[in-house]
């Protein structure tokens, strides 16, 4: 079954790094949070929700990883990352707002690798 193939996680990793790079550039250029950066964070959020949906579908299909509690924890935490970063970053009126978004992008990429380690059927 290839419903959780490598395409979505790979896209998330690339998108996460791209978002982090863009956000860090904004920090370096002393820019504050703006609409394009929020939109990019929203795109990452949607991609993460798609990935979570694919994994939930696989679980609903009856397959189980060895570390199910850990996987469920990751499924809950993953979509919260960009939301929390956007909230926390928007409260900042300096270059350090985008820096928070950069962390979220890097974390999203790391989470995909960790998901694969928890359940190898999730290909990266």
């Amino acid at each position, binding site marked *: 079954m290839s419903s959780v193939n490598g395409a979505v996680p790979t896209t998330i990793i690339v998108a996460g790094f791209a978002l982090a790079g863009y956000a860090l550039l904004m920090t370096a250029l*002393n820019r504050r949070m703006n609409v394009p950066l929020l939109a990019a964070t929203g795109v990452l959020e949607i991609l993460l929700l798609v990935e979570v949906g694919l994994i939930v579908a696989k679980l609903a299909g009856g397959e189980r990883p060895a*570390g199910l*509690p*850990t996987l469920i*924890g990751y499924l809950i*935490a993953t979509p919260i990352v960009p939301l*929390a*970063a956007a909230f*926390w*970053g928007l*409260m*900042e*009126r*300096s270059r*350090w*707002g985008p*820096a*928070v978004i950069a*962390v979220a992008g890097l*974390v999203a990429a790391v989470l995909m690798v960790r998901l694969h380690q928890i359940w190898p059927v999730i290909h990266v």
Partner: protein
Amino acid sequence: MSEPGASRADSTRTGPGRLLVAVYGLFALSASARAAVQIATKFGHAPVAYLLSAFAAVVYIVATVTLTVGSPTARRIAVLSCSIELAGVLAVGTWSLADPATFPDATVWSGYGSGYGFVPLVLPVFGLLWLRRWARRPGAPSAFRSGKSPKLGDSRSPW
């Protein structure tokens, strides 16, 4: 903490502190969750490692909360917890390399935080640097306060 005026860098949670609190919060959450799962499901497997994970989680929670609050008392507690954190990552890092048998499973601080990109090693250093900046100007609003100004104000600052 959501009043508009507070979003300038006039507390330990704004400016560079915004990033610091975000990373501390991330580690507080992930270390707590990880320690909880480890202790609940397989404590006998590596008790020392899991208890150290739980201790690290507590340290991260204390740092996150005190840096967010930012009052003089909170800053003193934060200095203490960041110091314990730095000592902990150095001690546990050395211990895990010297005596791998005690650590069949990793903690956050194993190998000086190598499993987490050495962020656990760097984080308390930045935390202490950030707090030291506040200790030098007790109670005073930060030089970041200039709002729109692109300059970060304090030229002595490493930020």
